[in-house]
């Protein structure tokens, strides 16, 4: 062999073999490493665990907030891995809705979310294939007339079903829990607005949807329309209660099962039938009572023309109920009027008896009926006081003439005032004389100038005593 120089030695050294570790030895190493990792604990620090827990809670809150925002996206639909998170977050939302009104709001919000998910499904042609494997038999078992053969169809059917269910739950809360008229009115208004909005959106979705899912959308739209009809009908009852200023009301949604027929009726046809029945009842009403319902019937017809069949149906049913109850109300009003008349007659009778008791001799004889144009003097001839001079009073001879004149003046005045019931004064007579009837019996002491006159008048009265 030739001798080597430094470079050759370095070259040989650089090409020395390199070896791999044994696999078994490596496995043993990893076992030791893992054991060491488990046994090793973080170094103790000042308030380490409390700080760790606090930091952990902030991190957990942050993850929860971010995760919830992400989960609430419309793209998070059934089958998405974040969908259970979304459902859990909604349960928490509902738990924090303490009043019935808040619960209604929560359910309506959930139904809005389901609608957005449905719009996303239709627009993106998505559908989790995993859904199909276990949901498809379930879906087919329920949907007899709609063939669900794609993940999108299954997803859409379930999502729209959830949407409708949320609206129904909101209505159920109103029926069971809301007794205050104002609260019920507010809640029903919100439900109606939400359902109307959903109906409009479903119409748009149906236009964009693939043929196989159009049927699903149409079916759900019909169901939502029925819900609108029930809500509108209940609202009319609550509105009446508000007008009557009733504090509490019992909301009861109509159960229409008894009217179901084997043949399915289109929504429009159903609404038209209800309106026709309402109009029949309306036409049977007396003319004077029609004004009450005319406006509402116009509203129902306008809703029908606008395509809002649920609203038209609901208004019609509410009107039918009111019209059927209306004769009963009329009878009650008549009865009330009769009672008021009797009460009035009783009061008049009491007054007459009172007057009889007070001044029985002053009671005038029944007056003859007034003939048109007849002068008052002719009519009341019989009650005119005698024209002969008054009997002389002892001790009054000196002033007799003056007193007579004064008395004559008084008697002239008396002619203008008669002892009769105020209400029997003829209007024509009053107009002729421009006299207001005196409400009180005449010859009250205060009407005279002095006490002497009073005495004289008292004596004069005695002449007419029986």
């Amino acid at each position, binding site marked *: *062999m*030739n*001798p*080597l*120089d*430094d470079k*050759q*030695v*370095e070259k*040989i*050294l*650089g*090409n*020395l*073999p*390199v*070896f*791999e*570790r*044994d696999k078994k*030895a*490596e496995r*043993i*190493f990893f076992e*030791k*490493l893992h054991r*060491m*990792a488990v046994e*090793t604990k*973080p*170094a103790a620090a000042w308030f380490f665990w409390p700080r760790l827990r606090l930091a952990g809670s902030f991190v957990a809150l942050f993850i929860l907030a971010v995760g919830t925002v992400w989960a609430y996206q419309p793209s998070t639909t059934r089958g998405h891995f974040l969908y259970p998170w979304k459902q859990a977050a909604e349960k928490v939302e509902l738990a924090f809705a303490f009043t019935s009104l808040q619960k209604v709001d929560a359910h309506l919000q959930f139904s809005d979310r389901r609608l957005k998910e449905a719009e996303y499904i239709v627009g993106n042609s998505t559908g989790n294939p995993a859904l199909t494997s276990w949901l498809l038999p379930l879906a087919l078992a329920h949907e007899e007339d709609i063939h669900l053969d794609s993940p999108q169809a299954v997803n859409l059917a379930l999502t729209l079903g959830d949407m409708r269910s949320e609206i129904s739950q909101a209505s159920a809360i109103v029926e069971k829990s809301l007794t205050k008229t104002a609260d019920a009115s507010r809640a029903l208004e919100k439900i109606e607005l939400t359902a109307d909005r959903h109906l409009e959106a479903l119409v748009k979705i149906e236009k964009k949807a693939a043929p196989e899912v159009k049927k699903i959308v149409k079916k759900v739209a019909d169901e939502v329309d029925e819900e609108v009809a029930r809500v509108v009908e209940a609202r009319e009852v609550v509105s009446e209660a508000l007008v009557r200023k009733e504090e509490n009301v019992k909301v009861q949604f109509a159960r229409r099962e008894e009217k179901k027929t084997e043949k399915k009726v289109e929504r429009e046809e159903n609404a038209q039938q209800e309106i026709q029945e309402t109009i029949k009842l309306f036409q049977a009403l007396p003319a004077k009572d029609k004004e009450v319902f005319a406006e509402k019937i116009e509203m129902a017809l306008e809703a029908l023309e606008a395509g809002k069949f649920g609203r038209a149906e609901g208004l019609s049913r509410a009107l039918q109920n009111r019209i059927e109850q209306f004769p009963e109300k009329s009878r009650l009003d008549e009865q009330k009027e009769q009672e008021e008349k009797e009460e009035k007659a009783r009061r008049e009778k009491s007054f007459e008896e009172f007057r009889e008791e007070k001044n029985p001799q002053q009671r005038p004889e029944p007056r003859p009926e007034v003939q048109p144009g007849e002068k008052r003097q002719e009519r009341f001839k019989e009650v005119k006081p005698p024209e002969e001079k008054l009997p002389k009073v002892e001790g009054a001879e000196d002033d007799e003439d003056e007193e007579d004149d004064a008395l004559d003046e008084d008697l002239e005045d008396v002619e203008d005032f008669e002892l009769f019931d105020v209400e029997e004064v003829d209007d024509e007579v009053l107009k002729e004389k421009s006299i207001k009837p005196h409400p009180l019996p005449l010859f009250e002491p205060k009407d005279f100038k002095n006490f002497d006159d009073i005495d004289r008048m008292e004596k004069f009265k005695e002449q007419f005593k029986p």
Partner: protein
Amino acid sequence: MPHADALQEFTRYYEEHKKTIFNYLFYRVGFNRDTAEDLTSDVFLKAFQAFDSYDRNRSFKTWVFTIAHNHLVNFYAGRKNVLPLEEAIEVVKEIPISQTVEEKMLKEKILRLVSKLPATQRELVILRYVNDLSHHEIAQIVGKEEGAVRTALSRAVALLRDEYNIHFSHPNS
């Protein structure tokens, strides 16, 4: 750093440098595989225990080699560093067969000569030529100046050359 993340990071470092450390130890313990395996595992376990104090600005390679070097020193206390000839021959048998017999024989001889170098020079030679470390890295590992490392390596190479020429070469072959 959370414990799980530290483990994951350390595992990545292990995969990257396990071969280098193993060969360093393998060459230093006279090609005793079992001993080398045990030592390699010990070195990495020690490194994991001290991983919290590892300065990320420093090269992991030099850091773990330092641990290996120190561990080896402790291991050598009370032991003789002898390369049994039989094991050296066994090592030679692991050389890829694409190489010629002459090359194999040449390497075998060099290996024998390396094993006879003084411990310090032997370590430098292995770190430089087997583990492919730079003079600077070697200086950090052994705790010496870079210039001293260069000088020592030159001397080691010269010694190997002289020993080879004396014992194995024939001027007229």
